[in-house]
């Protein structure tokens, strides 16, 4: 019973250790400057107190949208991974075609300037 949960336990432990390690290292090695924003609850480059009527930049949405798309497309690789032995070389061709199509989309997005931050 316990045995089957062992991998999960190990995984949790490892996660905690690695996370802690990085945090400590960051604290030790990184430079320390005290800025007002650093005291904000969410420190991710945006002012946390948003004025009423404030809107995110359009580019933010654009990139977010593109991210969702490219991110979710990868889901199609999972079934291939499950059956990769059964399909053999065909799985490889299939994946290549899929990646090429994604690349086409990427080229298009890039050339249209959707990735430039305005």
């Amino acid at each position, binding site marked *: 019973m316990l045995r089957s949960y062992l991998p999960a336990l190990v995984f949790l432990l490892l996660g905690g250790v690695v996370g802690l390690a990085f945090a400590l290292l960051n604290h030790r090695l990184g430079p320390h400057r005290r800025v007002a924003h650093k005291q904000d609850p969410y420190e991710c480059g945006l002012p946390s107190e948003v004025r009423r009527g404030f809107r995110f930049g359009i580019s933010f949405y654009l990139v977010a949208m593109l991210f969702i798309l490219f991110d979710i497309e990868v889901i199609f690789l999972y079934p291939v991974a499950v059956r990769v032995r059964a399909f053999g070389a065909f799985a490889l061709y299939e994946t290549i075609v899929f990646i090429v199509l994604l690349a086409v989309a990427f080229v*298009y997005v890039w050339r249209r300037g959707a990735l430039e931050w305005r």
Partner: protein
Amino acid sequence: MSVALAAARLHGPHIDWGGLSPILALLGGAVVVLLVGLAPRREVRRLVASGLALVAFAAALGCTIWQWDASKSIVSGALRVDDLALAVNLILVSAGAATVLLSWRARASGEAGHGEFYALVLTSTAGMSVLVAAQNTVSLFLGIELLSIPLYVLCATELHRSPSLESGLKYLVIGSVGSATLLYGLAMIYGATGSTDFDAIASAIASGGLASDPLLLTGIALVVVGLAFKSSVAPFHQWTPDVYEGAPTPITTFMAVATKAAALGIFLRFFDVALVSAQVSWAPALAALATISIVVGNVGALGQSSLKRLLAYSAVAQAGYLLAGVVVSTRAGARATVFYLAVYLLMNLAAFAVVVARERETGLGDDIAAVEGLGASRPWLAWPMTIAMLSLAGIPATAGFVGKLFLIQASADGGYTWLGVVIVVGSMVSLAYYLRVVAAMWMRPGPSLGATEAASPYPAIAGGSPEADPDAIGTSTPAAPPAGDGGPGAGAREGFQPEVVGLALAAGAATVFFGIVPSPLVDLARAAGNSLLGLF
């Protein structure tokens, strides 16, 4: 086990390139056209993109004809290539090619970028091809979404016109509700039968005595709603008038003819193949929906002054007529539906081509005033419109008459005589608004365009020149007609548009031709109907 795996590794799955070729042509074309859209020069983008789109459609047409009389399942049974799919494919591809021609000078394709515009048209057509060939609920859903998502965008491609954007968002929201409903219904059917394959569903229903299983019936109900939504059957039609009016007219054309053909195609395939054993439970519901649709569409069209809205309501009514062929689930019914779909393509192409041409010529938008006096000033446009209207109303010697005759015959033979009567009554009511258009063309004086033409390319009521302040149109004067539909940067109204006039004439002539010599289309429809093997 290991032997089978080894065999698979050696050979890989078999891919029937022939059966896939129409869809591949469309999708390949979409990729190429999309990349051409990146070309630096505007003229190159415009000419090459539309040219390549036409080539792709031609290739798809060729592949479809090449595959004619095939009867095979491809992609592990996900798609079925038979005469029904191929016949509807012919309609779809023709509609797509016509859309490219109509968009040639459209403002929409310029604003959205030619590459994107045509690539989206191609993708949507590919989605429709997948849909009509679907043999599996997964490919059904995929096809529906692949056709819808590009259409949401295409509706909104006239970025400077707020109705266009509004129609896009409305279509998206309502369309997604429809898709979600459809998905939920498909999930329930899967839950009840344990399979996503149409044939497996059919045999599960037939053998398992599921005909009164609530899960299955709820699933069917939701699927009915989802598909009815796509084919704009009342009461799920409400997006239709708004979206038809707001979308750029070439896209409206595409939606009207191609979406309807694809949706009716899958209606036939799903209900007459997968659910054929449960016919007793769904046929009365579909018949009721058809009746509601005929009534609502014809009644709603009566008071319209916008031609596109009028045609939208007419599309709702025609969806009701078409559904009659599905209800009876006989080969005759399928044949009648496919025949009417082909006829429907021709009539609507003729009508919409005229609307497109007049929109660009008059600057009056799609108001009925734009065609007033057309008989005297532009007989070459007035005739196709007249023929289209008469054919939509089902006047003898037009293809629409023959189509309706088949539908009525099929419903009478299938035990739904009252539905045939409803079709007749609906056609009689519809004469009122179709003839209004005809009367406007032949009996009214034309709108006086001469004065404004000299002063400004746009009519004075449009609230100033759009060149000066592109953002002003739409926001400042919501009541103003969409000032002209000239090409981007083109100041003057379009004068002569050979491709649009030619299309209108060809479609009008074909409508009359098939009204007098229906046999070629009958043969096409018969082959399509006979490919539904489960029917008699």
